[in-house]
């Protein structure tokens, strides 16, 4: 089993909570894990990425090699395209459809989606909307984690267990709505994958 993931987004969008859930699930499944983060200046609204590597064998590099990612998991559509040099030929792009516009030259949103659709394997999900529908307007990240979970060989209950582990401190209601958002994302991806 091996899963090399590039997580992407904009500083402040909280991609690290996705990394935490998947990473925690990997640990509880007894797998090896390495996860590299960006701290410092780019966290101020710049583009940020995290390399998440999971394997049943020893992992060497903290960075996913170019052309080696099984998945680009992005909470912002334009940011998903920035990391195409890392995506393997068989890799998936799984991205939120909702642009985060904090620059004056943000491209036409439809053109961005069209570029993503050129990729043979992609899932574009309106994660903001699904999160709201699941009763968790701040659960966009969990929707994305849920959509991605379908393509990572870790049992669903381990993933949900990780959510419970990580958010339990904030109370049962937060855990419940985060799991609801996670499931909404996973169901959406299931339908799309066919």
């Amino acid at each position, binding site marked *: 089993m091996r899963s090399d993931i590039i997580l992407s987004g904009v500083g402040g969008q909280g991609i690290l909570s996705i990394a935490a859930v998947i990473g925690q699930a990997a640990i509880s499944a007894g797998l090896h894990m390495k996860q*590299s983060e960006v701290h*410092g200046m780019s966290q*101020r609204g710049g*583009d940020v990425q995290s390399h998440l590597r999971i394997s049943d064998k020893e992992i060497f*590099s*903290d960075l996913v*090699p*170019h052309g080696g990612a099984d998945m680009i998991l992005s909470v912002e559509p334009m940011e998903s395209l920035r990391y*195409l040099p890392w995506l393997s030929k068989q890799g998936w792009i799984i991205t939120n459809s909702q642009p985060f516009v904090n*620059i004056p030259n943000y491209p036409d949103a439809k053109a961005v989606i069209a570029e993503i659709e050129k990729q043979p394997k992609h899932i574009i999900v309106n994660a903001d909307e699904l999160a709201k529908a699941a009763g968790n307007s701040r659960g966009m990240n969990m929707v994305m984690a849920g959509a991605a979970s379908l393509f990572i060989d870790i049992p669903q209950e381990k993933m949900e267990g990780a959510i419970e582990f990580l958010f339990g401190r904030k109370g049962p209601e937060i855990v419940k709505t985060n799991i609801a958002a996670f499931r909404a994302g996973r169901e959406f991806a299931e339908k799309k994958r066919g």
Partner: protein
Amino acid sequence: MAKEKMMLMGDEAIAQGAIDAGVSGFYAYPGTPSTEIMEYAQHSKDAAALNIHRQWSANEKTAMESALGMSYCGKRAMVSMKHVGLNVAADPFVNSGVTGANGGIIVVAADDPSMHSSQDEQDSRILAKFALLPIFEPANQQEAYDMAFAGFELSEKYKTPVMLRLTTRLAHSRAGVAQKSRLSQKELKLPENKRQFVLLPGIARKQYKTLVANQAKFMEEAEKSPFNRYIDGKDKSRGIIACGLAYNYLMENYPDGCPHPVIKLCQYPVPKKMVEKLVNETKEILVLEDGQPMVEEALRGLLDRDVKVKGRITGELPRDGELNPLFVRRALGMADICGQPAPAIVAGRPPAFCVGCGHIDAYNAIKQVVTEGYGDGHVFADIGCYTLAALPPFEVVNSCVDMGASITMAKGAADAGLFPACAVIGDSTFCHSGMTGLLDCVIENANVVIFILDNSATAMTGGQDSHATGRLSEICKGLGVDEKHIRIVTPLKKNHDEMVQVIKEEIEHKGVSVIIPTRECIQTLGKKNKKGGE
């Protein structure tokens, strides 16, 4: 049953390692990518229960000196900083080689190749070599943890400070770390030689000879270090020296094992016998190292005649920037594997001020009065979030060199006849290295306007406490700034006209003016409000 592994970033592994190895004090000033060492220690329940010192210092120099004081008392100390912070601490750092240590002392230097969040990509190993000190360079999180134990041990064995050097990638990457059983802290015990730390020339000369004589012993330690390994391979057409993290990128490209003999090099000085064996047995040497080509240069020597050495200098690897699996792959002579290029539609997304940040309001006023009134070229800035005003839409600031340089560069420019000469510095940076420069201005009554943007935090690195909070105008008064020309304003949109007026008045004042726009960082404020609500 073995205890479950802890998921730790490289920085956190070092801090946990130090806690478990019986450290008595952490000292540091925030700086990416080293910040999380101190933050981890501050949040650690173990460290609290053990009553370990873990508060920020005013700057890296004061941190290094405090660590030395703790070592003087026979206790173990860890001081951590980013690479450019080591420049600030260079005076005590280099001299600590001559004083030596009493209790173990580890100096952690976190380098930032590719300058993810820095002004340069200097290699701290070279500064440690300059100071004649041993260096540990972990390849992974587990080694980062283990090296805290090994570092203190070596430090006490030879009564010498040691450096633990890592780079951004390991500092900010998580993996499982197995914990060792905890050692207790050392008792307070002064050095046997009560003049050990007195570097009067007569004493220093003697101790320097000891340090020089120790070099051979440090080399012996590196030869037999468990962190250094000679891994034989059948294909002798090439031998590879992989330093620290670079070992991972090498192995990433050989999932079934490297066919060439390899030295995994994680403890310095460079072990001569080990390298000699590799040179004798292989046709050429490829050196993989993150940072500057220190090992490559040492092997090549000045005349570059006998040993065929390849690496960053010869172009097999890029001369600057961080290593990665692809660059190492190319250096090994393998074909690229690469995805598609990012489409042209992808726009750059540089960092920017947070929405609602007080710096925006301060800069709007500065821009209107200074840049629009006198032209571009009058504003010297410093290290912090406010440096972002070099980028659009502001494009107001004209320098960012090192901590504190805004004030002193503005002074030099005023000396040269520039008018107005303005400095913009943050509250924490001011306390780090700006106060002495302000004193220079006061002594000569330099014609400068100094903006101290007070957001009550060390914001860029994540909102650590600032030594300046609640003390800024008192510090300025104490340094001799005329009270009438210390102006406190609140950077809000509604106060724009007032700020413009204050700036105009202070530019007209012939002498030192300090304007302090004061409003808390919205990130730290947000965190506090969140905490209060829970």
